[in-house]
Structure formats: C-alpha cells, structure tokens
C-alpha cells in the first residue's frame, strides 16, 4: 500500500505495510537516522519526531497514522545550514553527553514551545518526562529549554 506524507518539507510516496512503525520507515527506508531506537515501545522518547508540530514516539506510530501529515525529524530543523534555536540552545547549555537521546529531546522541547511559548517549570517537566536520558543530562536540558524560550520571546515583535 502507498502512503503520502510530507517529511521535512518534501512530499514522500512510501510503499509499505501501513502498520510499519514510522521509526522503521524513517530510518531504514528514508535513511533519516536522527530518530533513534531506544525501546521500541513508546517508553523512552529517543524516537520522537514532530507530526504536524506535535512530538510523537515514532516507534509506536504506524505509518498509516501519518498519511497526509507533515513529519519533521531532527534533520529537518536546520535552515540554510543554521541550527534551529532549540538545537543551538542545547549546544550552548551543553545539554548532551552521548547525545543518543538528544534528537528526541530537542523535538519534544520544540513541541512544547509550539503550544506553550513561555513554559513554566511544571510545563517543562510534564512535557519532557517521557524522555529518558541515561547519561543524566536533565538539569541542562531544562536550562536549554528555558534559554530557547527566552530567546524566542526576545525575538518576537511587540
């Protein structure tokens, strides 16, 4: 069966079983390996991508569920070779070690700011709680999200 989906701004026509996990399609078919396999069961957030601006765990999202949607992976965030402000904030705050969790974290954080541009501490914790970092970079992730939010607020025209 063929499914139409926009991935990082390009229309894609994907021939696959509609039940195939989106993660598998992204990694194995499209070569977009920024989304990681961590658990395969929706429990770690390593595979998070944006679907129409909201973070979902792609390992438990069947391909059919994104038909007609816009999927954004970490590879689709840079514009003209410039990091997305959230990527830059993670870099500036040193919010990564092995960084295997980082793409999912960044996309989860962008999803948060899409709905709550000025998140409270409680908002950040709630949005990011499903993302596991085995290296323990959480304190700096919180800092990075705050930094990105404040930069975004500063840039907004009054």
């Amino acid at each position, binding site marked *: 069966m063929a499914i139409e989906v926009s991935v990082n701004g390009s229309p894609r026509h994907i021939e696959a079983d509609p039940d195939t996990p989106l993660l598998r399609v992204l990694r194995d078919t499209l070569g977009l390996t920024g989304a990681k396999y961590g658990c395969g069961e929706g429990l770690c957030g390593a595979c998070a991508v944006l679907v129409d601006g909201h973070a979902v765990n792609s390992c438990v999202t069947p391909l059919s569920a994104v038909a007609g949607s816009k999927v954004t992976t970490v590879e689709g965030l840079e514009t003209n070779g410039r990091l997305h402000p959230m990527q830059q904030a993670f870099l500036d705050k040193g919010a990564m070690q092995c960084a295997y969790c980082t793409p999912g974290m960044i996309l989860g954080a962008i999803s948060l700011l899409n709905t709550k541009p000025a998140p409270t501490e409680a908002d950040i914790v709630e949005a990011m709680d499903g993302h596991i970092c085995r290296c323990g970079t959480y304190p700096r*992730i919180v800092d990075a999200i705050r930094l990105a939010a404040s930069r975004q607020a500063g840039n907004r025209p009054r």
Partner: protein
Amino acid sequence: MPDYHWPPMAQRRVIGKPVSRIDGPAKSAGRAKYSMDISRPGLLHAVLVTSPHAHARLKSIDASAAQALPGVKAVHLMANPGSELQWEGAEIAAIAATTEEIARDAARKLVVEYEVLPWVVREEDLSKAGDRVKPSGDQTTGDPDKAFAESDGVSEGTYGIPVLTHCCLEAHGAVIEWKGNSIEYWPSTQGVSSVGDDLGQQISVPATNIHVHMDYIGGGFGSKFASDTWGAACAQLSKKSGGRPVKLFLDRATELKIAGNRPSVFAKVKMAGKKDGTITAWQSETWSTGGFGGGGLNADLFPYVYRNVPNRRIKHSAVRINAGSARAWRGPMHTQVSFVTCAAMEDLAARLNIDPMELFAKNAGYTHKPDVYRSQLEIAAGLANWKTLWHPRGDSAKGHMKRGLGIGVNTWGGGGHDSHCRVTIHPDGSVDIELGSQDLGTGTRTVIAMVAAETFGLPVNGVRVRIGQSSYLSSGASGGSTTVGGVSSSTRKAAVNALDELLAKVGPALGAEPVDLEATGGRIQVKGNPAKSLTWKAACQKLGVSPISAQGSNVSRTAAREGLNSSGVAGVQVADVSVDIETGIVRLNRLIAVQDCGLIINPKTAESQAFGACIMSICGALYEERIMDQATGRMLNPDMEFYKLAGIDDIGEIIVHLDIRPEHDKRGVIGLGEPPVIGGIAAISNAVANAIGVRVPMVPLTPRRVLSALEERSA
C-alpha cells in the same frame, strides 16, 4: 628532553576554560552517525534468537523453515544439541534477512526443543541458594570480639542492593561486512583499538584484517568492551550471505537480560564504637551474585574508604544464579560497597547518638586521605546547610512529610590508560590529531582538541580531531575513568613534539634559537616579543611541501613519573530528601557532590559528567532494579516501563563542587567518570533513614519498601 608539563594554571588559555563540545553541532543536528545508524548498500537486518528458559539443555534445533522464508539470507546457529543454556536470553541463533520484519518472522519459525532443568534466579535468601553458594572464607584483623565487648555501642543492620543493568540507550550490536579476507566492523564499543582483536579471536581472523569504525556511541558505562557472541554471529552472517553487510543490534528486552549488569550485594553488618564516635570494630557477612559466573564482588573493599578500622571480620560468599553475567558497571563494586559501608556507619552514629557528619569526619584517620575527606565533608556540610537542617534520626516535625540528610563517600583510581597519538601539522597551517580512541559522550574529542590548541596557541577550532578508527595509533579502551588522562597526555606529548619540530624550522626566519620561541595567540614568536613573530599559517608555510608528523605516547605504567596524569581521588556526597510517610514516596530535594578531581581540562564537560553520575546514583537509589522471578526463571521487567530510570522530574537539585585547587591540579589529570556515581546511593538511603527514623534495608527505596520499614517499626 622536550618539556611536556602542563602549563601553570595561570598561563592556560584553553585548558581549564568551559568549552562547548566540538561534536555538539553534529549531535544536535542529528548528523552524528551512531553504529546503529550505519547503512551500507545491500544491508541485511539480523535478529538474535535466545532461550526462554533460565536453565535448559538444547535437545534439537531445526532451522529449515526459517531458512526457507523468502528474504532470509543466512542463519547462524550459536548453540547445538546438547548445549546447556544457563540463563534466560542465552544465545541460540542469529538470522539475517532483507528486512527486520522478515528476520523476526524467521525467528518464530526456528524450531527449538529444550529439556528444561532446575534453576535458581534469586540470591537474597541465602538459605534457598543451596549449592550455588561459594564461601570465600573469613578474614579477621585485630580482635573484633574484644572490641565489640568493650565498646560503648554496637549497631547491627541488614542491607541489600540489587542487580542493575547498564541500559545504554543505544543497545549493543554492530554492522559488519565480511568481504574476502577483509572485515569492515562498525560496533558500538568502548574500545575502538581493542574490539577488533577480540572479534578476530572469536572468528579466527587476524586483527589486522579487521577495520573498526565508530564515530558515536549511545552509552557504554562498562558494558561495551567485548565484541560479544552476537558480534561474532553478525560476522558469520555476513560471510554466509556472500559478504553482504549485516546489522545486528539487540532489542531492549534482550539488552537488559544479557548485555551485562552490576552485581548485587546483601549484607549483615555489625559495628562498634566509642561514645565520642570513634569506630572500633567492623564485621560484615555479605553475599552477591554476578550471574552464572558467581559473585563479581571483591569483599576486601569492606569497610569502604574507612579501610583501617583496627578490628575487622569479613566474610563473603558468591552466589551463582541462572542469569546473564555481570560486567563492569560504572564504578565497579564501589557503588555497592559504599552503600553498605556508609549505611552501617550512619546506623552506628544513630546508635551512638551523634551527628553522622561528626562520625564520618572523626574517623577520617582510617581513610587513605584523611585531610581531603575532612575538608570535603566540611564543604559538603556547608553546601547542604547541614548545621541547620540536620536533626537526630527521625524528623519530629508535624505532618506526613519528613525531611532528612545523609552522607556517602567515594574513592577511585582513574589515571591515564595507554594511549598513542599522531599529530600532523600541514604546510597550510591545518592540524590533524589522530587516535584510535572513542568519545562516550564524556567530551573526549573536545578534550583532545583543547590540549592541542593549548599547546599550539591556536583556537580550539584550529585543530581537527579524528578518533574512532582502528587504523589510527592505538589508544586504550574507555574504562575506569582513564580516558581523559590517557588521551590528554598522549596528545600533549605528540603536540609538543610536533611543535618542537616546527620551531626548529621557523627559528632561522625569526633569527632566534628554537628554545627561545613560543606558540601563542595564533602566532609563533620570540618569547615575550610579539614584534618578532610569524602568524601560525606563515610559520607552517616554512615547511614547504613536507608536513610534520609527530607521535606521543602515554604509558600508564610510567605515567605518574611524568606528572601529566595520576590516580586516586576522594569524594563526598550529601543527600537532602523529603519522604511522604503516608505514600512512601521519596523526593530528592538536593544531591551535593564534592569531588576531588586533579587537573580539569574542560570544566563544562567535566561538570556535565559529574551531574550525570549523580543522576545515575539517584536511579540506583530510588528506581532501578532487575527483578527476577523464581517461579518462571525470568526477568520480570525487561523493558523501560518497569526497569525504571529517573526522568526529568525525579532528580531535584544537583550541586556539583569540583574541588579544583592548586594542590590537586598539580597531580595532573585523573578522570571523573566513575567517582561521583559512587556515594549517592548511600547518601540517599541515609537521608531517608534520617528522615523517617528507621533504616529501609534495601534499595531502591520504593514506596512499598519505605512503607513496610515504617510498618515494621510500629509493629
């Protein structure tokens, strides 16, 4: 003899400054390729088939239906009829197919018959472990019985700390392409320079024919040194499929069962002391399991750090159970031994009615670094506001929230492993640094760049670091907090050697002897005289068409003499917790880590590593535990829902105090990966005892355990 010494603290321009990791852009952009991300033309996907039984004999195995499935390209058997399988997850076969789905379908078609044998998978009750227990004998020092009889107070306690798994976010595995007699190997490994030899031995191929590549790794924590049986199976699948590349990574459940774990420890401890808090005797009876191999614990480490308690009796047993084998787990043995020792010390303090901070400090004479521990305890107490917040055991405040403080201590070796580095200065001024090392996320690449940049007087982005290839000069595996010590020293030496050659070439142009030249601020100049200088680029042009290639080596055996790195650190952790005695939920308010650390090259990544270590200790204190089920012989929680790790909401505030001072700095680089992971579990358990007035014997401190300890006290 060239001068390799680290520049004096005050003169460093790059070392000691917080530098963002140089691979950060690639990592945050998603461009960083981990071995699990590697794809090659014609890639096959492989899965592992494992035993569902804790103990069984393989009777027969029939792969014909699996092999016949369209898309299946190779089947490799890893066990044979008659093989005895000693744990759930033991490897039976590996299957490669054009897609992972097909490989999984084929795995279901593999027909395996087992004769199920009796098993033991739990070790906490020694009386049920039967002949699986191997005593390691008594060791007695001094006269413990007399000391107990003559003491002012004796405390007794039981303690337990379970098996943990490493749970690296990137599972174990590799991509392998075996063409002719050459093997391309992309493993997820902590030892780029050594893992090829290991694979070669398993598959009888000379290591020189195996080319290891690894740019990024998603965690190792001590579990990823070997090529493993599944690495060998991956190679065989590639060979059997005519040299097609094969990707074989463990799924999460298999990863948690067979890819390594930290041994448990159970303990009965008795301690004696005087009224003033002086410890006079230690007696421990401990047992542990590291899986089918046995114990995995060196009981000589008891009592931890306070090694020289004069009267000691130590008894230990190893228990062999039917579960996957232990591997080094960040701070091997130390987390467990620290927990048991510090918990018993806190219990003794409570028994003697004195402040544990006083007891830990008073007995520092029993440690190998009395002054360092004393001063660290003082710093930690200050940061924790101990004087104000501490109270005798049992928070007497009204209500159901109880607050408490507790202490844990650590020690570690570290140092610098064997490492060889090649530095090339090109005539166009570019600089390449190559080592067969790896960056586990600790910031190794960045540290290498900083050392070279410091030496050449260049900015960090003025040098290019290449690691992750076995074709580079060999550098040690990353274990035991020895990487930064090793690679910084070899890089420093190679860079100084290269610079000396460059200065020799440039000297005539500046009309000066090479010894009178220095590299600073992007220039080569006569010492202290910027007027007589050349830019780095102009200086390198003097090389004509021949680049400079120089090497440097750190040899761990003799490194201490050179002063670039050394080993041996101390550290103290203090936890501040609040416990809800109605729900049993423990909340961490703060975890404070004061860490002695030697010379810190990059405080930004060092601090991040210490944060991470603290968080890992929080996981171990409050959440993580491998749970085995004696009825079925299986692990009950081989997934990330029930094998719990701390999330962003679970960690409270973490305060890291890297104890940087000139007298520590002059010891050179020591390494920081392990020590801050060690004391946190003890500190948190002690803080909970201080809060609720009773010891919860077993970690992690789950609500159920907290409530049952409270119930037992009121019963």
